[in-house]
């Protein structure tokens, strides 16, 4: 496909359950980002990869959140022992070189909507 692909699109989890969200970026895109978007809010930065290296994870809200991109392509965001406050849309975005700050263009997926009961 031509765009960023995320799965599942919708996930309902019981409180305490572990979830895994997958992101398949645009082929050749070096940078990959995860954002969390709560209802009525803008996207909030979670973490960032350049190829397989996780260069910034300052936005991850707790140690229950973990992200990986082992081969520099597909990425997985894992949330352990989900809580109700984790309910949100999780957006993945990718961007090619050069530096994002120079172009500002992130290519977003459709998001994974997580509902924790």
């Amino acid at each position: 496909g031509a765009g960023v692909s995320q799965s599942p699109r919708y996930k309902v989890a019981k409180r305490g359950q572990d979830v895994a969200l997958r992101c398949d970026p645009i082929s050749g895109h070096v940078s990959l980002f995860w954002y969390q978007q709560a209802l009525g809010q803008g996207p909030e930065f979670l973490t960032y990869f350049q190829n397989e290296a996780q260069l910034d994870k300052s936005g991850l809200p707790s140690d229950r959140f973990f992200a990986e991109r082992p081969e520099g392509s597909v990425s997985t965001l894992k949330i352990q022992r989900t809580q109700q406050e984790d309910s949100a849309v999780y957006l993945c975005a990718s961007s090619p070189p050069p530096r994002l700050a120079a172009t500002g263009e992130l290519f977003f997926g459709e998001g994974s909507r997580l509902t924790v009961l």
Partner: protein
Amino acid sequence: AQRVTQPEKLLSVFKGAPVELKCNYSYSGSPELFWYVQYSRQRLQLLLRHISRESIKGFTADLNKGETSFHLKKPFAQEEDSAMYYCALPFGNEKLTFGTGTRLTIIP
């Protein structure tokens, strides 16, 4: 700390009327700012960037450093402009911080 503020959550404008979506920022230095848009049932996408000085779909945005604003404007609203609009500011080398968004509704 870098911050982007969009004071209006909702904005309704009649078709053909001018549109202005407000964005204020706090940033030390010369900022690069962006507007992203999300149309109904579509993904979030870049609308325009300050550095390009471009007009996209009739929209323009001027950086006003004195007022620390980057308002998005269009002289004549069209129904297809109805969407969520987010102002965004880079922080660090690679991240974007987004405002809370404004839902624009064009009234036919």
